[in-house]
């Protein structure tokens, strides 16, 4: 499907989804979704025969200081189309439903976001540190206001 077809098709499925005006540098369409609506939307993206986004190739997070944004990059290896989904999260208590039941690969990606940004993934099967060594629980080193006077030199 082309980006325009995706836009109209997804709007029919989920009228609450807001699309960015601009197509990003990779030529991908960006869809903004409420964090509470994400799980239902993700299931539709995965299972609808005309969409079939069967590959979550990137899940990461952005700290905007006022809020966090979860960013999911999806691809369909069947229909050869891509979609970026963004969900705004509350910075003081970031929570979103896990999609590891839909895309198995999300399990590790979400663990990484959890250790670096402190996003809590609800119903995640095994939410603990992935790469950071023991003792880093809850430190969230990729947040903009993270301070580490021993290891970090501020510019």
């Amino acid at each position, binding site marked *: 499907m082309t980006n325009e077809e995706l836009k109209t098709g997804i709007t029919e499925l989920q009228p609450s989804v807001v699309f960015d005006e601009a197509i990003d540098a990779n030529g991908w369409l960006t869809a903004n979704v409420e964090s509470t609506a994400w799980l239902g939307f993700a299931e539709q993206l995965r299972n609808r025969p005309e969409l079939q986004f069967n590959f979550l190739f990137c899940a990461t997070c952005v700290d905007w200081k006022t809020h966090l944004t979860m960013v999911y990059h999806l691809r369909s290896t069947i229909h050869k189309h891509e979609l970026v989904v963004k969900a705004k999260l509350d910075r003081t208590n970031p929570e979103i439903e896990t999609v590891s039941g839909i895309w198995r690969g999300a399990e590790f990606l979400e663990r990484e976001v959890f250790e670096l940004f402190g996003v809590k993934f609800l119903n995640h099967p095994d939410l603990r540190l992935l790469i950071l*060594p023991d003792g880093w629980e809850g430190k969230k*080193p990729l947040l903009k206001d*993270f301070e*580490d006077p021993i*290891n*970090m*030199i501020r*510019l």
Partner: protein
Amino acid sequence: MTTQQQPVSDFPGEIHDTPGGGIVLSKLDDVINWARSNSLWPLTFATSCCGIEMMSTAGAKYDFSRFGFEVARATPRQADVIIIAGTIVNKMAPVLKRLYDQMADPKYVIAMGACAISGGPFFYNTYSVVKGADHVIPVDVYVAGCPPRPEALLHSLITLQQKIKSGLTREQIREGKEAI
């Protein structure tokens, strides 16, 4: 520098012509240093993009085996020189220390690229990068660049050879002091 280094790159010793042949006079230490410096086995160790340049240096185009570095070892117990090719993060630091400790004496260290020298592009605002591999293990030769070109790495390898031949590596100086 060149005036000092020029003589030691030849075989160390003097040839005295005698009827029917000749005698070479030399010091055993110098001969050992000469032999060691011409067969340095590097450890297969690379932590980031400098490793790509190191592979290129090992490959056919630049070919560091011309200078005696061809036997890259996958175990530190058989390696003479460790080329720190890349960023050392806090989590990697104990591994690097262990690898260095497992290497047999005499052992040499080359810090390749900005990250291994000082943390380089990761000096500021990062929680995970060691600000220079010499915080973890002692370094003999530093080679600048991000990443250094293969020619620069070759130059650092030859510099290390000259350092060994001159008896001026950190280890050789320490051993000399202990002997006295």
